[in-house]
């Protein structure tokens, strides 16, 4: 992304497919209309990112996605002065650009960012609704259509990282979880092209493995993993091999856990 290239929503692209699990679409539309910041909470691979892509398409807004990490600084979000051959110029960061141009700014896995970085969002998400840029003294008033959305996984790295209470209370929270069996099988079928019966078996297997969530699995298998497994199977890989490589192995290195999950795979598929 460069400073001269305007953000635009490419309406011509295909609609990102999303199967609503409840009234999250209506709630998000209301939040967008009222300029409320939204927090998407849920386990990894349950459809948070797909949801925001779908909503950006639906609301005809550009989407600026910022993957958060430990080294993300406030300058990375807001912008910085750059030294060029003809002088020093200010370059907006992605958050500032999204605010200026009325885009939806999506901070993915916001708990990965340091808390002092996340604080820059506060003025944008309360009654002030401005983005102060301390280095230039400017106060950016977001353009109509701007919306701040963050996502995080409450179960991930819970011992080490969490959002400050003062940050949490600035967002409307939408809780995401894995859909029911039929809906999840439909998603796997749609995204991978696998037959319905195998998609159903995969989801049944995943739900059994999810029961081990409190038995040493750091993360339970996501819908994303199921789609990856199904894609391998559609490509001609034996379904058991596909499950072992795409579904079981990424989840754990604990020998007993991995063996138990492999046993489940063998027991589920003929």
């Amino acid at each position: 992304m460069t400073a001269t290239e305007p953000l635009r929503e490419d309406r011509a692209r295909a609609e990102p497919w999303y199967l609503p699990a409840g009234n999250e679409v209506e709630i998000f539309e209301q939040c967008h209309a009222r300029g409320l910041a939204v927090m998407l909470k849920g386990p990894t691979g349950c459809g948070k990112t797909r949801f925001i892509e779908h909503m950006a398409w639906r609301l005809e807004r550009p989407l600026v996605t910022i993957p958060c990490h430990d080294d993300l600084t406030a300058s990375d979000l807001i912008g910085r002065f750059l030294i060029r051959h003809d002088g020093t110029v200010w370059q907006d960061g992605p958050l500032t650009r999204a605010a200026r141009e009325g885009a939806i700014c999506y901070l993915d896995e916001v708990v990965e960012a340091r808390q002092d970085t996340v604080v820059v969002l506060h003025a944008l998400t309360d009654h002030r609704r401005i983005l102060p840029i301390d280095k230039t003294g400017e106060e950016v008033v977001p353009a109509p259509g701007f919306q701040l959305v963050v996502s995080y996984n409450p179960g991930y790295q819970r011992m080490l990282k969490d959002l400050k209470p003062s940050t949490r209370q600035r967002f409307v929270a939408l809780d995401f979880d894995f859909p029911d069996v039929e809906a999840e099988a439909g998603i796997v079928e749609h995204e991978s092209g696998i037959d319905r019966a195998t998609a159903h078996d995969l989801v049944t297997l995943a739900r059994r493995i999810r029961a081990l969530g409190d038995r040493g699995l750091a993360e339970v298998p996501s819908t994303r993993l199921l789609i990856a497994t199904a894609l391998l199977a559609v490509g001609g890989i034996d379904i058991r091999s596909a499950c072992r490589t795409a579904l079981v192995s990424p989840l754990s290195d604990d020998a007993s856990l991995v063996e138990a999950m492999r046993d489940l795979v063998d027991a589920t598929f003929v």
Partner: protein
Amino acid sequence: MAEAEEVITDAARHVTVFVRELWRRHQPVSEDPTPRLADLKRRLDLFLAAVAGASIPIRVAQPPRRPTLLKVLLEHDRRPRARQPLPATDGLRIWLPSRLDPAPADPNEAVELYRVMALQQLVRARRGSGLRISSARTPLERDLLWLIEICDADAELVEMLPGMAVPLQRLRRHALATRPPPEAFPLVRRPLEAFVAGILKQDGRGGPALDAADRLAQPTPRRTSGDTARRGVRGREPP
């Protein structure tokens, strides 16, 4: 913020896993490659927890008590008696033998047999199989109802986990091979033993074995008057 108890739970789990792995690494290596229950207990526990959605304790089955002299005299037609520990459940726990006897040559087969035995007991625990036969009034009636219930439970197991059909067949062949010869049974029990052998030769999907049970029960209606109980088990009216 993370709750204090969550931090303690996480830390305790990591410490437990570390100590267990340390213990296993420093245990003397057994010359017998066939896995025992102790080697597979956690794996089976996790497997059952995933299938059932909740943990069910696994215990080591003990050999049956030696029959008293009175029992030998009064129940002389109940021979031969089991001398080895057998898988069992009381609906809340599962008992499995500490080792397989005879042990399969292939260690993977031993794992598979343990897995099927554990699943069989899990399904029976969930179905309340013991309660289903509690209305039997005679030993023969109880045995027949028990066999019918086992067939139904195995059919449910295969329906729930289709991949277990072949391992179930292997377990049945293993069980058939370890049963005493028919001559070891008193004459009155040989038809029942033949019926058991017939079940063990099948693939675990039910059907013909249950019809055979009905036929076996037909000539002795007075002794197998468990129609009421069987109606509950099979879900249909007796002929």
